């Protein structure tokens, strides 16, 4: 049965994000005034924060995952900065121990006696918002393919990498269908690489689609391309989506269209779930 592999320090898995840094990310989400680039940076920082905590033990971070973030816009390259700059896939311990900076933020907590206490907590930041240039999606997927090829060669029996592609627009360097297929055709002995296409939008009238099971009702060729290129959700991901109140079929695909910030967060959560606990 695919997607049943153990995720452990001996057999780590991999998350690769391919994120749109084009100029249009400066525009706000359809709902609200938050810029898409701000929302994306927040969501990625939050994801890495939670992944680091998930892998944390009292002695430090356990390397259950290698993580990469490819940004594409004015450039196509690893979005990590500082000590992680230019690194394509980074063990989660290195990610956790090398944020770009640690912000100090106030946090209110309630003690066991019911007293509200305000204190300062340290919050890691890996990414600031970026919005510049075009949408070279083909080039980004080409880079992703070369990164994943190396990782799979080194981890042929691992739980397959999950690739989460977040974009707000159409490719400006050609049809990415072949490049996306190049990624989803890669596989370990436990299954093919999983690709999730998350389309975020500034269009208040855009039709919102959440993990559709068929191409019926897709508004245009671009949406159909993203749908066709996306992987099917694993049964565990389907169950996770249903537990979150989403109406998904057994053949749901990892694709959302015209997502707002909440749907973006939900899509990341669903697309990065493995059925087995960490070992």
């Amino acid at each position, binding site marked *: 049965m695919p997607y049943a592999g153990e995720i452990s320090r001996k057999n780590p898995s991999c998350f690769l994000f391919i994120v749109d840094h084009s100029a249009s990310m400066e525009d706000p989400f359809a709902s609200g005034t938050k810029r898409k680039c701000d929302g994306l940076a927040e969501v990625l920082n939050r994801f890495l924060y939670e992944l680091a905590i998930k892998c*944390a033990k009292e002695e430090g*971070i356990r390397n259950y995952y290698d993580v990469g973030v490819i940004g594409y816009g004015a450039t196509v390259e690893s979005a990590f900065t500082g000590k992680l700059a230019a690194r394509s896939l980074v063990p989660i311990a290195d990610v956790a121990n090398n944020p770009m900076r640690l912000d100090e933020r106030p946090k209110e907590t309630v003690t066991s006696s019911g007293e509200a206490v305000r204190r300062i907590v340290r919050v890691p930041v890996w990414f600031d918002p970026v919005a510049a240039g075009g949408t070279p999606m083909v080039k980004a997927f080409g880079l992703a393919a070369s990164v994943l090829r190396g990782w799979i060669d080194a981890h042929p029996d691992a739980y397959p990498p999950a690739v989460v592609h977040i974009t707000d627009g159409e490719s400006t360097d050609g049809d990415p269908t072949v490049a996306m297929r190049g990624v989803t055709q890669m596989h370990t002995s436990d299954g093919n690489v999983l690709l999730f296409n998350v389309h975020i939008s500034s269009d208040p009238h855009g039709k919102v689609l959440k993990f559709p099971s068929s191409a019926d009702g897709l508004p245009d060729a671009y949406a159909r391309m993203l749908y066709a290129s996306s992987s099917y959700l694993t049964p565990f991901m389907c169950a996770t989506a249903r537990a979150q109140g989403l109406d998904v079929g057994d053949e749901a695909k990892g694709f959302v269209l015209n997502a707002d910030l909440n749907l973006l967060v939900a899509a990341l959560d669903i697309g990065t779930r493995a059925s087995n606990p960490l*070992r």
Partner: protein
Amino acid sequence: MRVDFAAFWLHKDGAEPSQYEDAFAPACVDDRPRTRLRCAVADGATESAYSRIWARQLVSEFASGRLTAPDLTELPLLGRRWARSVAQALARNESAAWYLEPKAADGAFAALIGLELTNVAHADDRGAYTAVALGDSCFVQVREDRPLRAFPLGSSAAFSARPILLPSRPTAADNFAGAISHDAGQWQSGDTFYVMSDALACWFLSVAERGERPWRAIDQFARADRSGFRKWIRLQQPTALKNDDVTLLRIVVR
């Protein structure tokens, strides 16, 4: 009653012995006559931090008789003790990484099986047992070379990847109280109780379901040194036995 008690444990393959997160109590039991024996195995969750402390507290409190109520009502007190231990550990570490405090705030989780054997008055060769469990650590009672009772899970198919566990910091969303299960029964002289964390328990039941006698392999180790157990476990992992911390208490009642 007298008991022949032996404890075996092994950390998961690829980890350090110090990263063993199961716990058991007592560590050893002499063979003097006794009217009662309380023992426990706990399995600290890998995905939580400081779960080793939590698992040790649970088994220690159960074995010493301080965790007694059927619904484990002493747990909040234990949870506060766990939180104090963790806060002290964090306070001692001035260069603690940013993630340790939020991780500790999530609490620790563990499966627990607690077993109490008692004498029946005026009889040395039989008695009663009670057990409390939450999660997938189990005991199997074997009599005359046949399995008599398995608790709380009765078949290998009942093991899941994500059992409900005992939290050190219960929240309103934690639905563990209703998942605590109880068992009671009888023992007679010559019975053997195998108290195990989940990986070994699942293997034990699956082998027994094939009509084989898994306790015979285990009983061989009781006569050998501990290194035999460890070698045998490594041979089973990860195909027959999942790669996990392994704990076994073998208790022969006489």
